[in-house]
């Protein structure tokens, strides 16, 4: 704006070629900012500066006029609308209601944002690699060549070994988490006195609150090497990155989760069912086995499904303690890799955004998102239905 004013006014006081205007303008800027000392004998300085200062003043005055008139119009509109029959409160509240609704849309937008961003990149990936090769191929080596002529550069994107590894680790984790979680829940909600509960519950809560990076460090540093040494003593050649070590630590991490959901579900079983069973002469454990657990089963299964979805989505433990080589095996003593570990290794560090290697991470992310979403929707639906049944 200022530049435009100066450009139109300057030729009337100074002879300037249009080409040299930029140079003079910069000089004026510098003189005005006192970067270049003012030279009274230089006509460019004296006359030009006057034009420049005039332009600044014009702009600031017109700015003031503009804002002044906006304020004036707004005030007049407000005065015009302010009359006894106008109910301002209704309008203001409607507006606030709209703002609240817009803010509550953010979580919906997030879901769609996730879906769209993962989907778009995945579609680009499936343009380069066939979707069948991805879902059913058994070779996973995502290292594509940096140079065209590199050996072994093709890159294979058959994700079956990755899915297999994820399942294996989740299986080991659930084998730890389900029994331990379920039995702690049974003990806490059926046997424990409230004073014992007050001590034991926080322990599980602390276990749930430990950051996953700490579990990962622990798995990589203690459990992995421990299992390797155990194998050495038994005469087996094991690595410290075995699925067993990772699954074990992940299982411990999920114990509080299984326990708290099962606890909720078990305490939701009506007391009358238990009392009926006691009345028939059943012991506590018989009541639990034959009455409480069957009644709570749908809820417990839903809780387990939620736990499975956490296990396959868990990232830090596998990144830090699991291997990176994609092995298609169901032996928990061998190292395997998982979907999340692959996503992280493919995306961390510098990357170009159109290589199949980077895009593969989004395809894996899509699979992960869809699978966990289905598990969650189903499990939450069951939990909800189950609650309504006993209410």
């Amino acid at each position, binding site marked *: 704006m200022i530049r435009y004013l100066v450009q139109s006014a300057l030729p009337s006081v100074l002879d300037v070629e249009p080409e040299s205007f930029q140079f003079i303008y910069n000089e004026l800027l510098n003189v005005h900012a006192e970067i270049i000392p003012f030279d009274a004998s230089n006509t460019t300085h004296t006359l030009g500066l006057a034009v420049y200062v005039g332009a600044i003043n014009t702009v600031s005055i017109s700015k003031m006029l503009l804002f002044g008139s906006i304020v004036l119009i707004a005030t007049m509109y407000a005065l015009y609308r302010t009359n006894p029959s106008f109910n301002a409160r209704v309008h203001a509240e409607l507006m606030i209601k709209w703002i609240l*609704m817009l803010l509550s849309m953010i979580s919906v937008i997030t879901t769609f944002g996730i879906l769209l*961003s993962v989907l778009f990149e995945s579609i680009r990936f499936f343009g380069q690699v066939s979707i069948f090769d991805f879902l059913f191929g058994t070779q996973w080596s995502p290292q594509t060549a940096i140079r065209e002529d590199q050996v072994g550069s093709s890159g294979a994107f058959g994700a079956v070994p990755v899915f297999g590894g994820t399942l294996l680790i989740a299986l080991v984790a659930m084998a730890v988490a389900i*029994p331990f979680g379920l039995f702690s829940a049974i003990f806490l909600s059926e046997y424990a006195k409230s004073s014992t509960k007050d001590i034991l519950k926080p322990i599980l809560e602390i276990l749930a609150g430990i*950051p996953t*990076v700490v*579990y990962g460090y622990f798995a990589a540093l*203690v459990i992995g090497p421990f299992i390797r040494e155990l194998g050495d003593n038994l005469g087996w050649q094991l690595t410290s990155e075995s699925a067993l070590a990772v699954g074990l630590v992940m299982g411990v991490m999920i114990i509080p989760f299984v326990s708290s959901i099962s606890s909720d579900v078990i305490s939701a079983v009506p007391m009358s069912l238990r009392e009926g069973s006691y009345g028939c002469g059943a012991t506590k454990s018989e009541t639990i*086995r034959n009455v409480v657990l069957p009644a709570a089963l749908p809820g417990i299964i839903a809780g387990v499904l939620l736990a499975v979805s956490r296990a396959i989505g868990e990232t*830090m433990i596998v990144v830090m303690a699991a291997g990176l080589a994609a092995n298609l095996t169901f032996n928990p003593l061998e190292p395997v890799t998982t979907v999340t570990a692959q*996503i992280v290794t493919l995306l961390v560090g510098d990357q170009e955004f159109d290589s199949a290697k980077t895009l593969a991470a989004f395809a894996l992310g899509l699979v992960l998102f869809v699978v966990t979403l289905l598990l969650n929707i189903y499990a939450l639906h069951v939990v909800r239905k189950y609650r309504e049944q006993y209410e």
Partner: protein
Amino acid sequence: MSRDLKTLVSQGLKSRYRNERIMRSLGVTALLFASGFLLLILSIIFSQGYRAFTQTYIEIPIELSTADIEDISSINFQNKIRDGLRELFPELQARAELADLFRLASRGASIDLERDISSETPPGTINFIALASSDVDMVNKGYFVDSESPRGRLSEQQYEYFQSLTDRNLISRQINTNLFLKGDSSYPEMAGVMGAIMGSVFVLGITLFLSFPIGAATAIYLEEFAPKNRFTDFIEVNINNLAAVPSVIFGLLGLAMFINFFGFPRSAPIVGGFVLTLMTLPIVIIASRAAITSVPPSIKEAALGLGASKLKMVVDHVIPLALPGMLTGTIIGMARALGESAPLLMIGMVAFITEIPQTIFSPSTTLPIQIFLWADSPDRGFSERTSAAIIILLVFLILMNLIAVILRKKFEKKW
């Protein structure tokens, strides 16, 4: 007949009581396993980490002439440290021996010396407490006492110098201020968590600033204003599902949307804050809704009955009564966000950054990511610091949860 039944029942009683005991002991075992594991984790982390809170220093005499003081900028501090070390071992002459000797002091020592000397320092000899190198630190902390070679990574000569210094009482252990005040470094003895803590503060600040208002607004809308229809049901299901989406997926969202689409800088706390906001939002919303539902309807109806509008009722009665619950939920959400690292890996916050970040746009890491980075290093000095960083992180988490518990206890009302 009834006698038969009685014997039948009493015959079965033994095994039934045994089953009872088995069931009970299974529960106890499960809980013992869980608490044993917790204890194991905490004790290993603590036993590895506590030594990182002290650091080994060497007392070195530094000679300062009047000329030095007059022109501080011309002093070669590295040489001053070296001269001091040479003075402690005047018998050493060979180049190789001296090079070995100089390696006892950390590279950070000269930087510390530069900071300590000003134009007001009186000329003469000062006893400067110089930072020792990590190898000396490890030996001094006794990591190798029981192993075959007690000198760790020090050479034979260096170990001799070290022992001679110990005999002369020049080796000391002091509180490790570097750990708390410095950023990351490639030398363990100079590496600290301050940069990561500042990164975490920025990220959490943004998360708090965004997720509390948005979460509270959503909860208020859903509980007080939203009509009960299909669409509201959809929002609700959506929020519950979002709470269970794996965190790494939020990282993919951040990478694709904020960095590639909107062009935010990589590694910046602002993107981390956005991503963690979206991640903690469901937690905040669910907790806030629970807090709002616990406000008894009688209070709301009383307000409405006195002629308050719905908004007035919410602002003057529901929000003040639900606020402690909302804040508790938010703090728990923040604690989750503080420990989270997977989504931040995706948006490039995993980088070697030595400077302490100054703005929400400067590249930085966070505390969990610093742990992740250090955990990778085979260096003993770093593994000690990894555990120390975990201890610091856990202390922060415990503090946050404590605040949440106190808040809940203090404002909890039974209606």
